[in-house]
């Protein structure tokens, strides 16, 4: 019996209840607590571990390693994945380190705005970022359209979309904020006295950097680099949409093998390789984090406005570069969705250029009259429905699990890493697992989950659940036990204690977690691309479809849908920021 319960029991016995009923009650509350994590764990078992086990089972059944062709595919995918992830990470560090230095050391006008701007893409769905880059640098994007108009060219002069460059640019766009956060925080917390001490001991500027700053920052540099690498390694949407299927990373190859060639065993093998790599990198990362030295100053270093001309030049150049790099794709997208820049397919005669809302109004119509064609607004409806279900499911599972984790017993200590495991599996792997698991008995015959649209919110719940638990847990843990005890001594029953103490305090965190689950579900692309039924596409899937079809109208509608998605996600991010409890850390 925990200390808390012991004290609660004392209270009850003081109130004059018989010993027997107290024991009974204590036992019952222990059982009740034991059951709190059960829903989440059963859900994980059925919708995460079982699908993973199916992947494992299939790969064991069919030894792909004996097939030379399959081996070649795997080796190529792995090599390319490592290659692009390494390149992306290096480029991200190249932009992120000076940016981290900029934010950690200098004050300048618009700093807060620039910091937010660099952080936004990290939360944006991949399709939105891909559309943003497309609207800015794609063949129908602003820059190409502008250049074609000025120089009267017949073809777009800049080819970025469909090249490795686009993938790298988008990865840098996504992950620079990690470097800014991790290294920037370390830099601004680095005790300035250490540097001063080194200088009084005779170290010059270079010596201070090599002997002190660099060794102290090294773990943070490595951690940031590894985290960026991990994200680049598992990137899927960006590569598929901006690069195209010819850039087959492990993720894309899993998708292609599963959805286009129906080679499920090979997909399973690829998933296994992917899972193994992710595990290794994650283990390395957490090892690093644990060893990280804390050389933190009692308070952050004060930033100053740049004084020397060198510092001033650096600040101006760096701020402008970041500004352009982040603002242009993000601004291009909504503007492009409202502007007609080219003739529509099959249109003759005078083309009307300029502002238009047509791309939005068209979203409501099924122009082709085909039964298989879905008007985009329906995809939006699907996504909203899936997101709502995801919120309900992940909160219903997450709140009890978080409660169980706040006062951990032996079991709960085991539970925590289990709950966090889905973070390590990629969405595509999850999708593949769903296909394998629910296309086979006992799910395939009378109760066919695979053909049900429910699969999408189930997958999204698996993805959102770790975040929901992680954001609820600190809020619950922030409630001092004495508050609950005080409420109990004042005569509140456990249920009343929950209603009067716990709930009002974690209401904000719950709302924030719900919004988070909602945004994750709205923008999720990888799992949905494998498990969504063709007749019930999500919004990101519809965007991908429209983006890959010819014609200005399709392109415009993709832009319009991306803009809607960007707005919804943006609102979500804003809400989460507003709801964040002071002092709690980010995900």
């Amino acid at each position, binding site marked *: 019996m925990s200390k808390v319960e012991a004290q609660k029991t004392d209270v009850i016995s003081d109130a004059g209840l018989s010993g027997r009923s107290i024991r009974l009650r204590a036992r019952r509350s222990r059982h009740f607590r034991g059951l709190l994590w059960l829903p989440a764990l059963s859900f994980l078992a059925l919708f995460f571990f079982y699908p993973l086990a199916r992947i494992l089972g299939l790969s064991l059944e069919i030894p792909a390693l004996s097939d030379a062709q399959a081996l070649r595919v795997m080796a190529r995918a792995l090599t390319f994945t490592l290659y692009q992830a390494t390149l992306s990470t290096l480029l991200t560090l190249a932009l992120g380190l000076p940016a981290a230095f900029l934010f950690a050391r200098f004050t300048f006008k618009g700093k807060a705005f620039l910091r937010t701007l660099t952080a936004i893409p990290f939360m944006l769905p991949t399709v939105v970022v891909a559309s943003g880059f497309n609207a800015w640098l794609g063949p129908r994007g602003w820059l190409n359209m502008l250049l074609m108009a000025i120089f009267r060219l017949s073809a777009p002069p800049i080819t970025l979309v469909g090249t490795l460059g686009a993938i790298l640019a988008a990865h840098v766009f996504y992950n620079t904020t990690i470097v800014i956060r991790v290294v920037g925080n370390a830099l601004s917390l680095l*005790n300035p*006295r*250490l540097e*001063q*001490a*080194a*200088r*009084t*001991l*005779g*170290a*010059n500027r270079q*010596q201070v950097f090599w*002997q*002190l700053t660099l*060794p*102290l920052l090294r773990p943070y540099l490595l951690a940031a680099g590894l985290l960026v690498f991990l994200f680049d390694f598992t990137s899927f949407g960006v590569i598929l949409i901006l690069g195209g299927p010819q850039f087959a990373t492990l993720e894309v190859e899993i998708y292609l093998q599963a959805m286009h060639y129906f080679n499920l065993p090979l997909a399973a093998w690829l998933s296994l390789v992917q899972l193994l790599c992710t595990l290794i990198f994650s283990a390395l990362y957490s090892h690093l984090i644990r060893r990280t*030295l*804390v*050389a933190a100053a*009692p308070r952050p270093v004060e930033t100053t406005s740049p004084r020397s001309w060198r510092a001033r030049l650096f600040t101006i150049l760096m701020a402008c570069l970041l500004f352009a790099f982040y603002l242009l794709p993000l601004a291009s997208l909504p503007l492009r969705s409202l502007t007609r820049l080219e003739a529509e397919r099959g249109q003759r005669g005078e083309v009307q250029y300029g502002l238009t809302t047509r791309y939005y109004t068209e979203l409501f119509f099924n122009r082709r009259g085909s039964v298989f064609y879905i008007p985009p607004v329906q995809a939006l409806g699907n996504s909203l429905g899936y997101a709502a279900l995801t919120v309900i499911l992940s909160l219903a599972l997450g709140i009890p699990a978080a409660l169980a984790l706040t006062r951990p017993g032996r079991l709960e200590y085991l539970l925590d890493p289990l709950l966090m495991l889905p973070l390590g599996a990629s969405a595509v792997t999850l999708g593949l697992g769903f296909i394998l698991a629910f296309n086979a008995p006992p799910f395939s015959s009378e109760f066919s989950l695979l053909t049900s649209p429910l699969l999408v919110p189930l997958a999204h719940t698996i993805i959102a659940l770790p975040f929901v638990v992680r954001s609820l847990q600190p809020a619950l843990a922030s409630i001092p036990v004495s508050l609950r005890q005080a409420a109990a001594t004042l005569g509140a029953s456990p249920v009343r204690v929950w209603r009067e103490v716990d709930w009002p305090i974690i209401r904000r965190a719950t709302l924030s977690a719900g919004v988070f689950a909602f945004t994750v579900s709205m923008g999720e692309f990888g799992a949905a691309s494998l498990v969504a039924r063709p007749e019930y596409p999500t919004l990101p899937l519809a965007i991908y479809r429209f983006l890959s079809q010819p014609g200005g109208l399709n392109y415009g509608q993709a832009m319009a849908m991306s803009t809607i998605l960007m707005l919804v996600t943006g609102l979500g991010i804003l809400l989460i920021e507003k709801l964040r409890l002071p002092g709690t850390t980010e995900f």
Partner: protein
Amino acid sequence: MLEVRDIHKSYEGQVLLNGISFAVQAGETVCLLGASGSGKSTLLRIIAGLEEAESGQVLWDGADISFVPTHARNFGLVFQDYALFPHYTVAENIAFGLRMQKLPRAEIRSRVEELLATVNLVGFGPRRVSELSGGEQQRVALARALAPQPRLLMFDEPLGALDRTLKDNLLEELRRILHTRHIPAIYVTHDQEEAFAIADRVLLLHAGQIEQEGTPAEVYARPVSVWAARFLGAGNILDAKVVRKKAKGWEMQTVLGNVEVTCGHTHREGDRVNLMVSRRGVRLEPSGNLRGVVTDVLFQQNGYKVNLEDGSFFYLEKAPQIGQEIYLHLPPSGVQCLA
């Protein structure tokens, strides 16, 4: 040796240092004593070259070193939070300055051993600094600062975070080390006991200026201003009115009765002045010239601290009753005019 000339510095629009000048002689330990926020740490950092003064000069043996970068000054500085390098061991921390001087490895090793012995940390070399207690970290910081054989050693509230007993032990050790090595030192603190224990000369810093300077005994016995007397807690400060001139001084009226004061000032009858009345060397005597009502009596090591109605207090050998009216004899040397 070191000379500081007319240093001015302001911080966020507030004048912090307003024309500071002083010198440190060979082998001398000078203590900058002042309340927190009096700019004493800033002054130290200006001498170290970590901050720039708005005007004024720092000189060494007569040469202006104001523009010499910190690392070329060879002034040691012991920080309040020690600023030990967390990624190095104890020995590596001490060796840092020696490595900067590019000494041969064998010499570095022997010097480190010698320094570890000096600060009583033999065998601590391979330890991580995070494993050390506050006092041990302090010693490492001292050894590290001593290692490159600095021309001047500076201490920025080095014992601020330690408890009293540890402080006293370390102070004695520090005195020994400074005297045997004959290193000039500047020691910054807000704790007068610390200052008096270590300093050959004390500089009182107040309102951006040096209020008073002298040996600890001089400064404590003869504070030059009301502020100095209050800050040092050197005696009771009493409001007084000049009554009349006497043969050797002045008769002055205070709330505790009339006293005779000898001073070099010229007063006029009816002038208001501040007197400092010593708290020790006073005894209970029915014919005493001071009179007051006891509000509290506290037992202390060598007698009693007796509080009077007006807020002043005295150390007496015998305890009077609370509420009792007492008469005290104050010798003529026990009162000073602070003007």
